[in-house]
């Protein structure tokens, strides 16, 4: 089964006079895993709630496939949701938690039993069906929440930061499981998070929001390699992309104090973006001075000051140690430089 595509057209949401989402148009591909990413307060949860039907749109239309759903109740939209704090019913057994939606829908007991078993099986909950949520670990509760969402075989699966309460190790495991689950059931999945690692690993496509507007909507690799704005450049990647205020003089780009950074042809003031891992330490390059260095095992991150004082983050593949104050010289890798308009932040 392939899930429905979700088409949003000029969707707006206002609370009182406060416009949280000022007109958003986008299409989420059927059967795709789409991650809505953004800083807190960017309207991503509001958007998800409007897709779910938990909040009304102020104006605009939302379609699941060809069906207009913005005025339908959540249960009539054929979507299910996994919540951040699991929101399991504390007084019900795992079996009843998973089966509650079926019970409300009036599914006969025998069929309910079978479908709960199947759903529980597919998230690895066998043997825990008679427990109460309070007797389960965080990871197990999350599984119950997922099973509860998939038991109705929804065409759209919504996730509201479901992994943020798990510890790092469990989170990694659940990410893998969610990907496999998505591939298996084929529903359209929409996943809200503020964690870029989740976005990068889970998504077919990432919708990056800021202030209720789509900043970039593309595949994760595209977001990483070709950020549309300086906002995307700094939001994605850790450590973030370096952004340097520089001037193009036709044949090359220099720092304000005259140091030549690159021979990329450009004219006029510019914001030069370069990822930390695309900076090489070479014997004769741009001179700088180490400010700080930290070793992360697989690589080191060095913070260095350029001649005019702007700071540069450099990721070195080998555990190279630098002491503060030590001089080094660097080169920007060819093809890795991204240029942005210093006024609008948009990419040239």
């Amino acid at each position, binding site marked *: 089964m392939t899930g429905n595509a979700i088409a949003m057209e000029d969707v707006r949401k206002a609370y009182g006079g406060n416009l949280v989402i000022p007109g958003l148009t986008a299409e989420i591909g059927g059967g795709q895993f789409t991650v809505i990413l953004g800083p807190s307060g960017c309207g991503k949860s509001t958007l998800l709630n409007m897709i*779910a*039907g*938990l909040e009304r749109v102020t104006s605009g239309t939302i379609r699941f496939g060809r069906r207009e759903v913005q005025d339908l*109740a*959540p*249960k009539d939209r054929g*979507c*299910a*949701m996994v*919540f*951040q*704090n*699991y*929101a*399991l*019913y*504390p*007084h019900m057994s795992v079996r009843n938690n998973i089966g*509650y*939606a079926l019970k*409300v*829908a009036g599914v006969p007991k025998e069929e309910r039993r079978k479908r709960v078993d199947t759903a529980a099986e597919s998230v690895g909950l066998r043997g825990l069906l008679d427990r109460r949520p309070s007797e389960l670990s965080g990871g197990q509760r999350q599984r119950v929440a997922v099973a*509860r*969402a998939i038991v109705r075989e929804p065409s759209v699966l919504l996730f509201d930061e479901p992994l943020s309460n798990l510890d790092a190790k469990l989170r990694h495991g659940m990410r893998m499981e969610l990907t496999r689950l998505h591939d298996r059931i084929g529903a359209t999945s929409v996943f809200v998070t503020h964690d870029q690692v989740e976005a990068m690993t889970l998504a077919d496509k990432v919708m990056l929001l800021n202030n209720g507007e789509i900043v970039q909507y593309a595949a994760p690799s595209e977001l990483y390699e070709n950020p549309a704005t300086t906002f995307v450049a700094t939001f994605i990647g850790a450590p973030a992309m370096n952004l340097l205020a520089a001037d193009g003089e036709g044949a090359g780009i220099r720092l304000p104090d005259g140091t030549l950074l690159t021979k990329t042809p450009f004219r006029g003031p510019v914001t030069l973006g370069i990822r930390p891992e695309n900076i090489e330490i070479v014997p004769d390059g741009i001179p700088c001075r180490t400010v700080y260095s930290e070793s992360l095992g697989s690589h080191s991150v060095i913070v260095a000051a350029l001649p005019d004082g702007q700071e540069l983050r450099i990721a070195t593949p080998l555990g190279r140690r630098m002491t503060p104050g030590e001089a080094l010289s660097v080169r920007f890798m060819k093809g890795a430089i991204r240029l942005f308009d210093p006024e609008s932040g948009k990419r040239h």
Partner: protein
Amino acid sequence: MVEDTRGIDRTAFAILIIGVAFILAPIVIAFLTASLSYEEFVSAGGIGLNVGSSFLDNMRRIVTETQLPGQLWNSIVISLLVAGIKCAFAFTATFALVFYESRWNWIIFSLTIATVMLPLELLVITTYQIVANVAMPLNWLMQITGLAWLAEEVVGARHEFRLSLLDTYIGVALPIATSSTSVFIYRQFFLSLPKDLPRAAAMDGASPFRFMIDILLPLSWTPLVATFMFWFIGGWTQYLWPLVAAATPDAQPAVVGLAKLANTEPDRIPDVPLLMAGALFVSFIPVVLIGVMQRQIVRGLNLSEK
């Protein structure tokens, strides 16, 4: 610094003992007095600490010679009604207040809370008028809409609707039940529940009513039981309103009946031993209830999810 906890323990213990003695003294005196015969009581010249042997005899007289056993049943029914109505209304009202957002919420909440500020004792006369004819608002409504005049034209005679709830269980219980103190407690409890719970239920297709019955009600069991007990005992000890609303002994609750025992003949010294036996008889059920439900009450008033 090492504190002398034993000293603190002893002091605390002493204070507790004094407190217990203070609270128990009237009950002990009631017991002692109830064990005297009328003659012994009169010759002792008042309430004292004498022990008699007529306790069972006094109890037998309460059961056989007074109307207290029947009135005990009245008390049970009225208290159950009071507690049931209070809990049911407070529960549904709080559900609406907490889970439905409206900018008028604070006004509704304030109005609800205002009922706490107006004790029934203050409104006895108006309440009596309404209970004596609950159709009064209907008559009034017909009057101002002109329907009454229309009816008079058609039927030929002026008609006033009359329905008195005096001397009925519901008539005694309803006015006592119109107070919203539990809203405070339930509200605190509902607010402590996970915020996504109603949303999860909505996603599962449950209507708000279904959410209330299937999820909220089972979760609220402990505070519900605690407040129910509370209001049951509250209804049990009501005096003034039942005295006004129930004129015949058959409809009166036991506490009113007990008071009536005191003033049978004006010239005679009241039969205090019998009265005390009656008091013990009447308080037996609430005491047992509190004893059995103690834990539930404490847990329920803890205001948090278990």
